[in-house]
C-alpha cells in the first residue's frame, strides 16, 4: 500500500475538518471537527512511522493525551458559556473579539 494513499486520506480528513470548522456554528460540533483534524494529523504520523522511525507513534500518543486534556477544558468552557447565555452558538462567544 503506497504512502500516498494514507497521506491522501489524511489530507482529505483534515480538509473536511477544516471545512466543518468554517461552516458550523455549534461550538460542540466545532470541537468535533477539531478532533477530526487532530486525527488526520495522527494518521499522517502513523503512516510515516515505518520510514521515519517509531518516534511518530510516540508522538501520536502525546497528541492523543493533549487532545483529551483539550476536550475536557473546552467542554468545561462550553458548559460555563451555556450557563451564561443558554446557547452554544459561537455568536455568543464574542466577548474577546476586537
Amino acid at each position, binding site marked *: *500500500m*503506497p*504512502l*500516498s*494513499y*494514507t497521506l*491522501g*486520506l489524511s*489530507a*482529505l*480528513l*483534515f*480538509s*473536511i*475538518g477544516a*471545512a*466543518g470548522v*468554517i*461552516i*458550523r*456554528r*455549534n461550538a*460542540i*460540533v466545532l*470541537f*468535533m*471537527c477539531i*478532533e477530526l483534524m487532530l*486525527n488526520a494529523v*495522527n494518521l499522517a504520523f*502513523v*503512516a510515516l*512511522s*515505518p*520510514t*521515519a522511525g*517509531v*518516534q511518530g*507513534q*510516540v508522538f*501520536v*500518543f*502525546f497528541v*492523543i493525551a*493533549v*487532545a*483529551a486534556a*483539550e476536550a*475536557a*477544558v473546552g*467542554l*468545561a*468552557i462550553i*458548559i*460555563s458559556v*451555556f*450557563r451564561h447565555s443558554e*446557547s*452554544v*452558538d459561537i455568536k455568543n462567544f464574542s466577548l474577546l473579539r476586537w
Partner: protein
Amino acid sequence: MLTILFFFFAACAGGSALMVVTRRNPVACAIWLIGTFFSLAAIYTLLGATFIGIIQILVYAGAIMVLFLFVIMLLNLGNDYEADIRGPVWMMFAGGTVLVMMGLLARVYVEQGTAPLGEAGRASLAAQTAQHGSVGLIGIPMYQQYVVPLQATAILLLIACVGAVVLAKRKV
C-alpha cells in the same frame, strides 16, 4: 487484500467525516465521529500500529466521545437544536479552503511522485515489533528518550482536570 481493506476503511472514515460536518443534530454528529474513529483505528492496525489502534478506540471512541455525548445530553442539545450551518457564502469559503488544501497536495504529488511505502522500513518496524512487542515498541522510547515530555503530559492532564472542574462548577 490489505489495499482492499484500506480502501474500505478509508471510504468509511471519509464518509463518516462528511456526515459529521453535514448532520444538523449534534448527537448524530457525535455518533458519526465515533464511526470515523473506529475506521481510523482499523487503518492504524493495517499500518502495523496495533497499540495506537487500541489506544484510539479506548481514549478517543471511549473516553473523549463519552465526554462529548455527556455534555450534549447535560445541556439538552439533542432535542431542539438550532440550525447552525452557515449560509452559501461561508459554504463557498469552506469549499475554497478544501480546494486549496487539495491543490497543495496535488502539487506535492506532481513534484515528488507517489513514492511507495519503503518495504525496508516496514520490515524493520515488524522486526522491532516482534522483538519488543507492540507496547514495548512505543514504551521503550517513551520511557528512555521522552521521559520529560511524558512527565509534562502528566502535569498537563492534572492541570486540565483541575481546570475543567473549576470552570464547570457553579459559582459558590
